[in-house]
């Protein structure tokens, strides 16, 4: 599942292992997950690398980063390699 893959990437780039179980609908920005420009840049870089989707180029407002669920849907819709099953 792309969602699980994103959780793992998120846990990795934030160096917070507990985020491997982050709820899909938790906001990525702000309190809670607290994605900032550093962890966000690393996250987008890893997604481009592993899933072949350049979120920053395709989403000027980065609305895809509202939550893990919205990000997974965005990546899944565009990824040439995403596991659709």
């Amino acid at each position, binding site marked *: 599942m792309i969602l699980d893959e994103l959780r793992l990437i998120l846990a990795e780039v934030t160096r917070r292992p507990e985020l491997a179980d982050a709820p899909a609908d938790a906001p990525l920005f702000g309190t809670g997950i*607290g994605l900032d*420009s*550093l962890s966000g840049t690393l996250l987008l870089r890893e997604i481009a690398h592993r899933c072949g989707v350049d979120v920053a180029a395709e*989403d000027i407002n*980065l*609305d895809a980063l509202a939550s893990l669920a919205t990000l997974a849907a965005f990546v899944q819709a565009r990824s040439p390699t995403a596991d659709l099953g």
Partner: protein
Amino acid sequence: MTAARQQASRPAAGTVIKCVAWDIDNTLLAGTFIESGTWPPADPEMAAALAELGSRGIVHAIATRNPPAAASYAAQATGARFVAVEAGWGRKSAAIGRILADLGISADALAFVDDDPYERAEVSFALPDVLVLSPEDMTDALGWPEFSPAVITDEARRRSELYLDRKRRQAAERGFGGSRDDFLRYCRTEISIDPASEADVARLHELSVRTHQFNSAGRGATEAAFHAMIGAPGQEVVTVRLRDRFGDDGIVGGCVTEHGEDGIWTVRLLMMSCRAMGRGVIDALLAWLIRSAAGHGARTLEVPSALNARNVPLRLALAAAAFRAPGAGPDPTAAGAADAQPADVNADQGGKSAGGRQVVYRRSLAGPLPELPGWLTGPAGSPRAEPADSLPAGPADSPQASIADGQGARRDP
């Protein structure tokens, strides 16, 4: 090897080298390092180049196929300070990649010097944006604009030290258990936003040229432009200083805000050094701007921003602070975005932005405003500043911070 400069992939103008990564054998040393043998002396020309570049605020790194002992010896023999050392037997391009990541700089801000044509070719192929030079190129290269910053600020002179502070901070962070905010408190982070004065102009100009990842304009601003903006009616220029228990980074950012009569405040320039990335500075600055504008009755805060592949970190910070670019479609300059729709493109004010287009990020000032972090000190004299003692007490290690709504720096027309 003087043809190195003609590499087609080098950006035309404005690129300054921030770091030079050096090979050791027959480059820094006049011979080959052999662990058990007699160690060769430093190459006098390279030692002179190291010192000269260091005085211009350019930092040094080592990429060598030698044991770490060779790097220690090269530092001693040349008398130079190396902010990153990659000693091992892997590809040089991989070593350079780690140095770039370690320092948080992009490939076009790095030069690589090696006497071995094979190593140069390997790095050029894998990292086309890196400026690849032979030791013989260096004498000439000292006169090239890439190695000649127009002004050398206090921050530039202390740059090696600041990168070494950064390494100690990163090592501490790796071993730290708590959240990012806990770590910033542990570091005794202090961010201070102050009205810019004439004395800050050289550093503001330098930031405008050197910053890319956090630069809304996508191009530099001249010293004359900053002189004109400081004190101009309806405009506010501020500097952002950063320090913590590991060191004093000096001025790491700045911004220029225009106070419109129509309730719209416009941030004409927003910039921050990538060295300050991950330390809460850009979020604190945006929170301060939002509260400052709202405190003066503005309805909307706008940040016109260049869109390019490099300032994604700035866009992330804007998105995190609830800024949106209404109607903006995908970036047509990016690969895979060929079906881009027309977007809310703002006519660029006074020149073409380099390598991209511009959109206007906006944030309504109605509704909840972001909290100012406890480590931010805004300009004093704010009539609406909350008394510091009304704030929740932080951990024992937290900095003494006075929190202001940021109104003091406003220059009323």
